[in-house]
């Protein structure tokens, strides 16, 4: 299946995003102060680069060509699951430790791929936990809590 305009949309979106970024940085740069030739202000460099980015983004927006881009499937589900996994990892690793966080991350990511059976996902998550433990805690002796505050 060929979707003729997906890349075009993406290009426009990204260019618009970068235009916005350039504006924010330039604005901020101006506020931090441009300084003098001898004492360049903290904002001088970002101001100039921001302007450059604005100009380039405008050019890009105007010249974005409609292209053909082949791609299948919706990625939202996969991305969402992986994103949830990573957010979950970040949320619980501090308090629950490495192993629960890794298990959560691996399980959600596995679900996100959409192609693995549940029992395979659980097995994969468990073995990754073991691998992380062996590698980072045992081999590298890193101070990571593995479960609720206990260390290797």
């Amino acid at each position, binding site marked *: 299946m060929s979707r003729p305009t997906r890349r075009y949309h993406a290009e426009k979106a990204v260019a618009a995003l970068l235009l916005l970024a350039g504006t924010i940085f330039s604005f901020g740069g101006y506020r931090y102060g441009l300084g003098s030739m001898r004492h360049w202000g903290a904002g001088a460099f970002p101001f100039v680069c921001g302007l450059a980015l604005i100009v380039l983004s405008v050019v890009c927006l105007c010249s974005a060509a409609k292209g053909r881009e082949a791609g299948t499937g919706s990625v939202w589900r996969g991305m969402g699951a992986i994103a949830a996994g990573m957010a979950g990892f970040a949320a619980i690793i501090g308090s629950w430790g490495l192993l629960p966080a890794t298990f959560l991350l691996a399980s959600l990511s596995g679900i996100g791929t959409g192609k693995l059976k549940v029992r395979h996902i659980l097995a994969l998550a468990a073995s990754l936990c073991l691998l992380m433990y062996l590698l980072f805690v045992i081999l590298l*002796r890193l*101070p990571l809590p593995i479960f609720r505050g*206990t*260390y290797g």
Partner: protein
Amino acid sequence: MKFKHWIVASTMSLVVGGLTASAAHAQHYPQRPVTIVVPFAPGGSTDALARIVAEGLSNELGQRVVVANRPGAGGNIGMTAVANARPDGYTLVLVSSSLVINPSLYGSVSYDPVESFAPISYVASAPSIWVANAGIGVESAQEMLERMASGEMPYYGSPGIGTAQHLAGELLAHYADISLEHVPYNGAGPAVAGMVAGDVPSGFSSLPGVQSQIDDGLLTPLAITTLQRSEQLPEVPTFDEIGLEGYEVDHLQGLLAPSDTPEEIVGIIHDALVEFMNSAETSSRIAGLGFVPVVSTPREFAEQIAEQVEKWSEIIGAAGISVQ
């Protein structure tokens, strides 16, 4: 009536139980690995010092002592983390002088250098040294001061804004009443590189950072920032001696625990620290990093901290430096 007795009895037993539990806890301390937090990225001298200390404490306490780096915000992230950690003696922090400098430098920080911590001991002190590029032909501090006062070479390099070396330079400007232009670098290595290359005519650095360059004749030592002369460079005068009386900048490194850590545990760690710091091997390793090994009692250390916070607050205020 009975109810009241019951309340009192149970409360008392809880209190007594709690006391004995913490005492018992202290008796068995440490029961699991201890973490020393270093509020800087690995590779710096405070980090290397922490690893030496961790190694030594491991041997003395019989438990693994590991170093965890929590860098960021000039040390504030790591120090805040430990200030808020559980006061059970299993999380400690090795700080540099940023503990006493940052509160004034940053305007506001999330910890109180005096209230948030239970000091254990001073571990090392470090002088800074004022050096000049050998190529500019200056032989002494007085000569350099004259040249600077005449506006000829007002630049001095430092490893960064808010570092002890930067503040040493500001203090110099303050005491000598001359106006200087600070050239900040991104770390000690680049700062020394700049001085050796002659991009800046002079600068401040920690002692070991420039020892070999002085020996090789690339840099000329001008003055030491502590009140005593350095053992490694006994011919170099102190700032105090050359006419700036009372000038002192000492980069302190010390070990602290979160406040409310039981005194017995602080005592155990302190004694272990003193024990291993007394060995000649440890001294030479620490000296290799350019520090002067020091120990002190928790109380002495606490007093030092309070003093230095005061002092830096004045200097930073007067010089008008801030990070915001």
